[in-house]
């Protein structure tokens, strides 16, 4: 009962109703989700399908490669930015203090605040995948593999959300984690070009991102219909990264809440 009511409040009231109250923003959101798919579709056409397919060394097209990348990259970049932005907004509006005055544990508050980011990015993901389908992508989906990779990916995203949210609680303005995940992942995250073409030092950074492994697994699961056995490497690394992110996220969140309660900066922005 309590969980459902809180989810309703955070997702429908705080998330959806506030989001749709900014109508222009809603329209711009949809535009910003769709444009990259067309962009990389035409880039793929420009350089020729065979050359692009050689680069990604797979049996699916570059458009398919980029579409899956763009569709699921949103969780990594904007979900993290969404929570950090959400906390920042609550600080500015003054509602964070009232949320913290409620009998919610810090982890619960962060969890509920995260959910809307997942919802909005799921809308984005479905939109992008549907556009990809319209552009001729043939999805060959292995449901079990897709589910397992997505599950591990989501756990890692929750960890990153916690890290990002904790940082913004302390520093208020200017969140390096959100900036990194929203900008750098386009280059490092295996999103629109494969990691294999990166120089070694950038490749090493890319391997530290759960996004890199999740996208690799998701492409296998959704574009080739591969089973779990063909993506063991992705799953193991994804699990390790998820655990690291989650542990770091929980520790940082508890530290951040203790810090702002001690400093008396809950109501400040």
């Amino acid at each position, binding site marked *: 009962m309590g969980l459902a009511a809180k989810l309703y409040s955070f997702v429908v009231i705080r998330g959806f109703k506030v989001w749709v*109250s900014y109508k222009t923003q809603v329209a711009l959101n949809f535009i910003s989700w769709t444009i990259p798919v067309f962009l990389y579709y035409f880039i793929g056409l420009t350089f020729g399908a065979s050359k692009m397919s050689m680069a990604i060394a797979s049996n699916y097209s570059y458009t398919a490669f980029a579409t899956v990348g763009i569709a699921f990259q949103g969780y990594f970049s904007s979900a993290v930015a969404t929570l950090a932005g959400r906390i920042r907004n609550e600080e500015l509006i003054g509602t964070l203090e*009232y949320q913290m005055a*409620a009998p919610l544990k810090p982890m619960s508050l962060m969890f509920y605040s995260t959910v809307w980011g997942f919802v909005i990015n799921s809308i984005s993901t479905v939109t992008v995948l549907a556009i990809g389908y319209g552009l001729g992508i043939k999805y060959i989906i292995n449901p079990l593999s897709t589910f397992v990779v997505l599950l591990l990916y989501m756990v890692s995203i929750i960890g990153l959300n916690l890290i990002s949210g904790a940082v913004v609680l302390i520093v208020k303005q200017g969140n390096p984690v959100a900036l990194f995940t929203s900008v750098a992942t386009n280059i490092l995250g295996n999103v629109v070009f494969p990691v294999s073409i990166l120089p070694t030092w950038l490749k090493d950074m890319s391997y530290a991102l759960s996004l890199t492994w999740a996208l690799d697994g998701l492409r296998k699961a959704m574009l080739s219909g591969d089973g779990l056995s063909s993506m063991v490497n992705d799953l193991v690394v994804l699990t390790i990264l998820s655990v690291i992110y989650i542990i770091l996220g929980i520790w940082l969140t508890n530290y951040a809440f203790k810090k702002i*309660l001690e400093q*008396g900066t809950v109501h400040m922005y």
Partner: protein
Amino acid sequence: MPHYNYQLEKDLYTQPDIEFMPAVEFANVTKRFNKIVAVENINLTVNDGEVIALVGPNGAGKTTLLRMAAGVLLPDSGKVLIYGIDAHRAEAKRHVGFMTPMDRGVYWRISALDNLVFFGTLYGLSVKEARRRGLELLREFGLAERANDWVATYSTGMMRRLELARAMMHDPDILLLDEPTSGIDVDGKRIILDHIRRLKGRKTIIMASHDPQEIELADRVIYLNRNIVNTLPTLKIVKVLVKGTLPPLDGFRITDLGDGSYVIYASIDRFNDLIKKLASMDGGLRVIDLNVEVAFAERNARIEERMNRRGGGPWV
């Protein structure tokens, strides 16, 4: 016919593990913000059902005390307890409703009712319960007709009423109100004060206040200036610094400070009378500070003498 539970009554009085805890307890509480001491070594017990007015100049630490009791600020030393539980713990927060003096703290781009439902569910209400309770409170605070309007379209006074309604959503035992009627019009103020009056005896209320009409509602007035100077009933002379239009006040010594503010002197036995008189004056009159002198008879005589000689208090 309902039958009376004698066993329950007996248990209440005989069981050793049933204790009647103070509602709020500050024990040796100190809080600093960097080098600034906000409150120092505060000891204050607030009993169940008591209404307390915290008075004192700006920066005296009134809001700091309320924030600590609301569990959104930790003391550097000492303890803040709600029914014997640390105030920052979730179990303590369930008992507390909290309202600060700002036009922030509600979502402007959703309706008042949605705001109340949102905050109600944070305290464990179901959506249905929160909606019912929200509508009930909006009716009580004269906002029912605007329940589904965006809060952005509300006036300051309406917003203050909504904020109090929000604090009341989970029917808390303790209300922490920071200047609950500041900056609002006469009608809005009356609605809030009437509501607080109705809650007297049923809820424990701690109000930080500069307003004579709010102070009048208190069972106890605590003068605070970083540490508690004293509870007023034990003091002899009270000096009240007010700003605004002051009609003649017979029987009180008044010093005009010349900038629209006045110092009014009252012996403690006439303090309530003074507050009642100030409270009856609608309009822009505000209590800026409330200063007290310690109640030693011989010192009182010296103070009286000095006041007679100088014709003023520490503000002149």
